[in-house]
């Protein structure tokens, strides 16, 4: 049976595609038909709240004949002067990307105040249609999915900042960020339930999380990391670089010095020494840089702009004061945890009772196995 003047509502494909929500631009009334498909939820909304929602696929006629199925809604519609709105929601999960607009100021023990930015992807879906509609349509008066996603993204960034803060309090520094990204994802996921349930949104997963550091900090972190991995100090690190360059460029200086591709390992150090002394002799016609205008790196000797905080070549922190290493006497930054020359711990450290890893005296947890101290 169809009533005169009754309309049939369905979510047209062109309105659907990437939209988690669609707010019908007409009101529904008693006698209308509403089509709900497999992947949809229809929410009926009036006076700032959801009257009813239907999440089973069917064509619903909003008449007394269907009272057992749509009873609550029909009752509300038949006695009402004011009509109700129809809002469609998608059941499937959506993928969104987030990125911070404002940097997060992270106070790091070693690098000072560092501006971080975070990027990543997340998957979300409607977990509770009533809360979803009441929050986004009722409270915020959002009409489009774009507005909703924007809000979710902002909240995601805030949750990540909160996670970074928590983890920093537990001893995570800027240099540890990259290795802790999977943990950050889990910390954020553990917070999403409490945070998004109110919005009727569930966060299924966070992936591709990335924290970007200012260039100079990133460079310093990278350099240190690669030196740690290869277990070399900076001099060895640079020899390696020089050898690689020589090997890939046989017509260059190394070839001229009698060393070409295929040079034996045993010849390596001689070659490097030769190259180093060649480097230290300025080529004819070039002037050595005026010492007052540059800051020489105490470690590798590279020239840096006055005022630079980190060496542009090896990433060493450029500071004026140093303290001598009690073991080898090398000049070490007062912030350093270990002597960069001999590896002697510069500050009180504790040994993990479980795995034996050394951590700074301030650490609350073993960075290796997570044991609480």
């Amino acid at each position, binding site marked *: 049976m169809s009533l005169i003047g009754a309309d049939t509502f369905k979510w047209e494909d062109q309105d659907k595609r990437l939209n988690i929500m669609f707010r019908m631009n007409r009101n529904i009334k008693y006698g209308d038909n509403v089509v709900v498909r497999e992947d949809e939820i229809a929410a009926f909304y009036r006076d700032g709240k959801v009257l009813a929602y239907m999440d089973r696929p069917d064509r619903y006629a909003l008449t007394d004949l269907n009272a057992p199925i749509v009873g609550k809604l029909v009752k509300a519609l038949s006695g009402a002067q004011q009509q109700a709105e129809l809002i469609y929601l998608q059941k499937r999960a959506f993928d969104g990307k987030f990125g911070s607009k404002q940097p997060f100021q992270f106070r790091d023990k070693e690098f000072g105040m560092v501006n971080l930015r975070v990027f990543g992807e997340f998957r979300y879906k409607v977990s509770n249609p009533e809360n979803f509609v009441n929050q986004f349509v009722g409270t915020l008066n959002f009409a489009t999915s774009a507005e909703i996603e924007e809000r979710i993204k902002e909240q995601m960034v805030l949750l990540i900042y909160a996670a970074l803060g928590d983890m920093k309090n*537990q001893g*995570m520094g800027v240099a540890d960020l990259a290795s802790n990204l999977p*943990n950050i994802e889990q910390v954020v996921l553990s*917070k999403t339930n409490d945070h998004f349930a109110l919005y009727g949104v569930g966060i299924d997963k966070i992936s591709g999380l990335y924290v970007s550091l200012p260039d100079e900090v990133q460079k310093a972190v990278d350099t240190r990391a690669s030196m740690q991995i290869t277990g070399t100090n900076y001099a060895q690190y640079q020899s390696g670089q020089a050898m690689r360059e020589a090997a890939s460029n046989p017509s260059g200086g190394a070839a001229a010095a009698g060393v070409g591709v295929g040079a034996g390992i045993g010849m390596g150090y001689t070659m490097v020494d030769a190259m180093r002394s060649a480097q230290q002799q300025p080529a004819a016609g070039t002037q050595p840089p005026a010492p007052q205008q540059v800051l020489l790196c105490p470690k590798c000797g590279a020239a840096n702009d006055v005022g630079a905080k980190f060496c542009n070549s090896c990433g060493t922190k450029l500071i004026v004061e140093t303290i001598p290493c009690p073991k080898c006497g090398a000049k070490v930054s007062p912030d350093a945890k270990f002597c960069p020359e001999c590896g002697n711990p510069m500050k009180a450290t504790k040994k993990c009772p479980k795995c034996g890893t050394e951590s700074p005296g301030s650490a609350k*947890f073993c960075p290796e196995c*997570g044991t609480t101290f």
Partner: protein
Amino acid sequence: MPDIRQKVEEDRGLIKKIQLMVPGYRGYRLRDDLRDSDKMLRLELGKRLALQRKELEEFRQTMVTNNPLSKNLQPIGGIINQYKKVEGLLAHGESGYSGISADIRINVPELNMLYEYDAGMVDTINFVEQSIGSLRTAIDDNDDGRTAEQLKNVKMRITGFEEKFDKRISIIMGIGV
């Protein structure tokens, strides 16, 4: 025919085992029963998994509070994802995939095998539950080493359950190993 009577008795034991977990379970007899029983069992197993996952999500929250730098956070996140996947497998039968198709002829020997197999799945899910209990103790004690061990245990057992469910139909139909 003493053999058949014995079989029926054995079946009763297995049905009881499943009934303890699935309220209202009638057992596999007529074709409609077969389909309904299958659906009931899958839904109940899915519910049990969802409860286990909620517990794991609470554990994750505790671990985050105790130590957000713990090496155990990533594994527990992985296990939670695996649960979501297996829950999906079980629930997917609700629409589209029809579970055990009514068109498949199942005779007495296959029915017996089905009871046996499903009783085994019930055991497996209880087995997973045990390891979740041990995991809870390790987390409450704030013992990271033991937590790591128990996480591996839970992972192993839920993987076992997943494999068991995956093989279910093919084993019964005699095409599996």
